[in-house]
């Protein structure tokens, strides 16, 4: 099922969607799945399931460290399918966020088939641009999966149009030039980028990179269809003295963010 349905429901409720990122396998595979369920229970509409990768060039230190620990713990690519099933069963939509080589190595067609079978909605691909994605897009269309590509503040109008055309589900607008990681402000570049993206597409536009507080979520939800939060959630799990405490912190933050996306347009 496409995330478009979820985004439409949020729109009907007069609010932005909350999209939460967590890497599978961190702190452990069962621990990460439990964290994803907690995220959904606390108000996330869509869970972005990260596939830990050895060379994550779009990620800052928090997600890099989580990936290193997940890989050291033996996480496998196929664990993302298990996580997708768990997320869907707990009532949210599941998108898998992965660098390209794990998909390529798995086999693009079989990855798409297995993800669809697990109930996953599609893929977010941070290092795959539409120009290189014809095989993936074809497989995704065959299996009715979303293809979410990224746009950046540096994107030209031509690139925005090219990328938006290849997207299904939503367009992922990165709020700042840079890698993942919480930032004090996520201001103006995001609003400008969303406006420029809307000029070339009718698809929903979700904003991510740097968001860590309910107030930031509220600010972004004034103009975005969804607010994407990653590092701040991962840090809840990574910095806590115990897994139980990590889940408590995660629930607290997710609840604050869910409140943020609800009061932004109030």
């Amino acid at each position, binding site marked *: 099922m496409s995330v478009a349905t979820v985004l439409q429901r949020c729109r009907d409720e007069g609010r932005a969607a909350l999209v939460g990122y967590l890497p599978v396998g961190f702190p452990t595979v069962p621990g990460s799945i439990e964290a994803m369920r907690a995220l959904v229970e606390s108000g996330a509409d869509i869970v972005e399931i990260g596939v830990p*990768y*050895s*060379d*994550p*060039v*779009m990620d*800052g*230190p928090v997600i*890099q*460290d989580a990936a*290193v620990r997940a*890989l050291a713990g033996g996480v*496998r*690519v196929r664990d993302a399918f298990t996580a997708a099933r768990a997320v869907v069963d707990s009532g949210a939509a599941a998108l898998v966020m992965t660098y*390209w*080589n*794990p*998909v*390529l*190595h*798995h086999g693009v067609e079989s990855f798409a088939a297995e993800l669809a079978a697990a109930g996953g909605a599609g893929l977010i691909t*941070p*290092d*795959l*641009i539409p*120009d*290189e994605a014809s095989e993936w897009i074809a497989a995704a269309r065959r299996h009715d999966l979303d293809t979410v*590509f*990224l*746009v*950046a*503040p*540096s*994107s*030209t109008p031509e*690139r925005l149009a090219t*990328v938006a055309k290849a997207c299904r589900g939503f367009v992922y607008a*990165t709020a700042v*030039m*840079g*890698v993942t990681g919480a930032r004090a402000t996520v201001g103006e570049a995001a609003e400008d980028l969303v406006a420029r993206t809307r000029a070339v597409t009718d698809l929903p536009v979700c904003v991510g990179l740097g968001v860590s507080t309910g107030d930031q979520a509220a600010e972004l939800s004034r103009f975005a269809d969804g607010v994407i939060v990653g590092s701040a959630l991962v840090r809840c799990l990574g910095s806590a003295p115990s897994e139980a405490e990590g889940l408590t912190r995660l629930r607290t933050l997710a609840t604050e963010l869910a409140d943020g996306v609800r009061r932004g347009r109030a």
Partner: protein
Amino acid sequence: MTHAPPGRFGGFGGRYVPEALVPALEQLDEERRKAVVDPEFVGELERLHQTYTGRPSIITEVPRFAQHCGGARVVLKREDLNHTGSHKINNVLGQALLTKRMGKTRVIAETGAGQHGVATATAAALLGLECVVYMGRKDTERQALNVARMRLLGAEVVAVEHGSQTLKDAVNEAFRDWVANVATTHYVLGTVTGPHPFPEMVRDFHRIIGVEARQQVLDLIGRLPDVVCACVGGGSNAMGIFHRFIDDAGVRLVGLEAGGSGIASGKHAARFSTGEPGVLHGAYTYVLQDEDGQTIESHSVSAGLDYPSVGPEHAYLRETGRAEYRPVTDDEAMAAFALLSRTEGILPAIESAHALAGAMQLGRELGPDAVILVNLSGRGDKDVHTAARWFGLLETPGSQPALGHQDPSGTGGSR
């Protein structure tokens, strides 16, 4: 007939990067195409080659070394004599001039052994650019002298603490910096890999090696060589010397990869022996990877060859059969290192010693009628510490250990 799309060598290459970098790559591609037909740019690069780098680099025939190569004639292309000690300067000067053309004021680079970092710091000093070099924490420790060299040249050296803390992680960190600072910053990538247009552009800046060497061998010997040997890390010195010979069907092109402790040991950087096609650092090419597509760490006594991936054009040359690739073990490379030093008075870089070991194999296979051209990509000054430890020359002052005897610890200095 089907044409490969731009940035592809057959099926290899491409542009696997965050969207944020696409405008910068498009700008770079456009600028470098304009630059190479702009007499001002071409003239300035030529002037720097002649008055700064010391081009053309000479060739040297090495008959005493050749006695160990089945009696074949062996000719070295002396990139080791370039300013900063290796071929790396050819590419760096070209990219630094492009940086100025694009109106950018800051360059970043990755480095493993430190040679590319030193070359970039040098060009930045020469052209008045701010310079940051990313280097894996482990490499900053094993190449401490090159860290000091870069700092003396005014560059900031950042030790990368993430992942395996080696070259591949330095590349990751350079990409992260670039995404955040692309408006003011050019990433001076150090070899023929990465997203389009890097593989093509870096090759073109090194192509002068083969252009000079082909004519020099013709002048010296009266015919083309039978074989051209070059070591292959990312593959820039090899593409540089190979490219002018690609249409010379009678000339064998042989790339030598780091065989480390041997293929069977699993500790090597022989991408063409055990790697599979995949994507790393922006290009579709051969990659050392596990069954989930996670990059496997490489191993080599030579920091400059210690990289889990290889330039996509090499993957294409291998697939089409135009070039062949062989692994050379640490032991074989160090034996060739010692041999060239003792027979010819030339200390090669350990990277280049892999190419010399290849020439020893090929000479023995082809016999005395063969002519072998070897790209001596760099000098061994940076490797004296590693070699001294490898051969046990530091332990007992006054005694004279025989070269060819391996350090009993077997660790070398650079792993």
